[in-house]
């Protein structure tokens, strides 16, 4: 009997412990991880001065597109700065995409499109190729195709055949031809169009579908979550985990999961600014790059975290906004290079942030949770 009682007790204890650990673990997982350690690349580190418009991580290499050329960082060091003197198509670099199949790096500049391969640039411009316009805002690789967002529509280059295709207001539902960003999904490709909302291109059936602001050009939202928050879309990001896309606009942030829209404004969320330069989403994270700081939404906990630097002290501020709206603030010794954020990229758990005054590299510190 004693043995049986002991066994029952042991079983109950193990069940209790299991449940405790499960819920305790869940509780820990619900807290977003915080980036409390920042390393900045500025002109003091040999980095070009001024804006960093984009950043792309390719294993140990980080490519940063700046106002003054393309920067290659390798193993944490600025290895090379490419400018038109090195063969780059333009000085201002707006986008970088790495073709992981071929190793080629595609660079969108304000002087055309460049391919960096084997240490040599090859350029494509409006005059010398099928490129629709030399103002190239976005590039993305989809298998053998390269998609290019330009100020005069979207291009598709078949890298095997060299054939170019242009999509613009003549052959696709472009309300405006000014394409800013591209995000490649498994079945669709999404384009952020300045003044034209989000355009979706279906890869299997080759049709276009526009997503526009239901209230047109109005800069207020009549009904919450009625649709895309505004037609001036600066970027779009497909999240393969949640099967939804996120669209950043100059008037707030939107997401669409195929059935429902969700819109986010400063007045009803932890978003730091409605002027959102770009958005990147992975897993349960959504990163909004705004003119006032970097805001992250953890969709699992519906918690917002905003990173901002203190221009005077150089220290950082992290503002955490849980669903109940009770904000808390943390201070960090290091911070982002600037609060005007253009773009982010992920390298494993690390985050790279393109700002108006340099590039920032954020790392998690162990135990650095809320």
């Amino acid at each position, binding site marked *: 009997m004693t043995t049986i009682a002991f066994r029952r007790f042991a079983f109950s204890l193990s069940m209790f412990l299991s449940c405790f650990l499960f819920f305790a673990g869940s509780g820990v997982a619900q807290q977003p991880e915080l980036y409390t350690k920042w390393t900045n690349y500025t002109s003091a580190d040999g980095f070009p001065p001024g804006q960093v418009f984009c950043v792309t991580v390719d294993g140990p290499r980080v490519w940063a597109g700046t106002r003054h050329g393309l920067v290659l960082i390798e193993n944490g060091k600025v290895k090379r700065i490419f400018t038109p003197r090195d063969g780059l198509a333009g000085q201002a670099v707006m986008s970088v995409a790495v073709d992981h199949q*071929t*190793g*080629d790096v595609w660079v969108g500049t304000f002087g055309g499109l460049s391919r960096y391969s*084997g*240490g*040599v640039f090859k350029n494509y411009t409006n005059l010398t190729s099928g490129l629709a316009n030399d103002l190239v805002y976005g590039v993305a690789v989809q298998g053998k195709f390269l998609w290019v967002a330009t100020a005069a529509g979207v291009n598709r280059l078949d*890298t095997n055949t060299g*054939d170019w295709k*242009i999509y613009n207001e003549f*052959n696709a539902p472009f309300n405006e031809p000014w394409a800013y960003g591209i995000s490649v999904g498994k079945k669709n490709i999404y384009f952020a169009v300045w003044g034209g909302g989000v355009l979706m291109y279906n890869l299997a059936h080759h049709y276009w579908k526009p997503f526009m602001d239901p209230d047109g050009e109005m800069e207020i939202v009549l009904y919450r979550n009625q649709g895309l928050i505004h037609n001036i879309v600066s970027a779009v990001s497909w999240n393969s985990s949640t099967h939804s896309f996120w669209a950043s606009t100059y008037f707030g942030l939107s997401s669409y999961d195929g059935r429902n829209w969700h819109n986010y404004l400063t007045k009803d969320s932890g978003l730091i600014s409605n002027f959102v330069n770009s958005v990147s989403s992975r897993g349960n994270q959504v990163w909004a790059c705004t003119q006032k700081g970097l805001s992250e939404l953890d969709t699992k906990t519906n918690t917002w975290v905003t990173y901002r630097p203190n221009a005077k002290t150089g220290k950082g501020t992290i503002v955490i906004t849980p669903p109940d709206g009770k904000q808390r603030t943390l201070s960090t010794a290091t911070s982002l290079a600037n609060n005007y954020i253009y773009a982010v990229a992920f390298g494993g758990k690390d985050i790279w942030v393109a700002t108006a005054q340099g590039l920032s590299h954020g790392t998690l510190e162990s135990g650095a949770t809320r």
Partner: protein
Amino acid sequence: MKDWRRLRPVNRAVNWLVGAILLGIVVATALYLENPCTQVEAAQGPGSYEWLYLPRSRYLSPVALAMSHDGRHLYVACEDSGQVLVVDTQTDKVVDRIPIGGIPKAITLSPTGATFYVSDEEDDSVVEVDAKTFRILRTIHTGWGPAGLTTNLQGTVLYVANTLGNDVSVIDLKTGRELKRLSAGRFPEYVKLSRDGSRVYVANLLARLGAYDKPPVSELTVIDTAEEIVTARVSIPGVIQLRHIAELPASAGGYLLIPFMRPKNLNPLVQIAQGWYMTHGMAVIAPPADPAAGPSSYKVREVLLDNIDHYYADNFGVADDSAEHLALVTASGANVVSIIDTSALDRLLATASPARLRELPDRLDSARKFVVRRLKTGRNPTDVVVSPDGRYAYVADRMDDTISVIDMPALRVSATISLGGPKMVSRERRGEQLFFDARFSHEGQMACASCHPHEGLSDGLAWSLETPQLGRDIVINRTLYGIDGTSPFKWNGMNPNLETQDGPRTAHYIFRSQGFSERELNALVTYLRSLRLPRNPHLAKDGQLTAIQAAGKAIFFRTRTNSGEVIPLRDRCYYCHSPYTHYTSRVLEDIGTATPYDTVHSFDVPQLEGVSLKPPYLHNGEAPELEDIWTKFNPKDRHGITSDMNKVQLNELIEYLKTL
């Protein structure tokens, strides 16, 4: 019973008819079989005959070689017969003929030697063959116009250079599927796996597209086999036509040897009489240890294999005999193999001062320091391989259908293996032989094939052909593919036919020699007329146009501008580029592209067939891409009315032109 008297008239008629037929046969035979050759006996051999016609497929044209690991068999890819021949190296006999079909261009063994792979340039495929049974195992799809190929060290991946696609297919040999295509330079033709297996080197036949009035820059593309990405695009300045690649062992410097041609194309061609105009040599490249290193880590040197007073045109194949520190380079236009002492070459490069190294690419007095022997081969030697034991080297004599066997210890040609091609030489074949033969030019500097590699392609260079002043009348070379029926010739249209183009004019202005005899000229022209464009990969096999191509076709044949105005007949695309005459009007037109350095302003309208193969464009090659023709060089709509077109329409037009 038949009345034989009534039948008799009929029999007479039949007899007359039979007699007439017999007489016709005799006359036809007499015409068919011409007199014994006298003019080209030196080249053809005494007592040989020239036949009016024999299908090209009857000839073999060995162009690529590979040896079995035990040295027992020599595999010979024959581009004209579409076969791979298996030669028993002990008996020097052909023991098997494997029908590949199409145009076999290159051949490589798997690392185990159990199979070999043959590229079929015509069919965009690679054929895998069992090296024991010589049975075809499978056909693998590649990119456009596959030529050189190699496996990785493990034999799991095949790399294929696609000449028309300007890329390299990376193929998983387990599944036979193409994993990816890596962009190469222009017209990548031959590849080589490095000794340590870390890299695949790709030699590009044509130079990069650049400014027409600057010396060419060619590219060696380097693929890192671990990552399967391009890690370096090594510039080789001043040269074109990179061919086969050999890698010397570390003990001999570890250099890559790549035959090339080094032209002085921007100097007036009249200077060929002074020599040193068309030179031929090889790049000697020291690769870095790290396969991921960029192009600046590759040390590029260039040396010439010519002598001061005689040239060894159109270097093609290269092989090394590691044990003896020798390398062999075939001069396909001179019918010679140059034997190189690689130790002497290494010493020369190691001891030369920087100033001397800069001079080397243009020095005609350096070959004597490292070329130890010149061996006569059959006509048009292409590929060369050395047997595993280093005892023999084998040279593919493309225009003789033979293999020259070199006794390496003795450094002499010890035997010639007949591959069984026809004894008869057709007029077309004779012309082809002449096409590759540099002995008709001053000091053997060039053959027709020197400027028209790959059997008629354009070298893509601008040349100063006739005006003796520097920088005047520079014109781009044009392809010979599909040239029949497109007279007149030359950009100024001065030559009404090919006989004029390639007869005295060529002799006086280009070859600076006696040139071809009338008989030889007829043969050469017959060959040139036989050259056909390769299958156009931009056009679907069923000939159907895509939507974009169809839209471009409508623009090509449009009669009104976008605003509805009627386009004058002369300003329509199809007026000058008529589809009924190979998309050329065959007259001269002034489209406003003449420069102050041109002495004429009207130029021959080029045929558009195969236009995608022909960059750069316009008479002087000023337009590297098709787009340039209209975006930069048609500001006043003199080259057809195009200024009303938007970018989408221009793209459509270009996509259509690429299908022609």
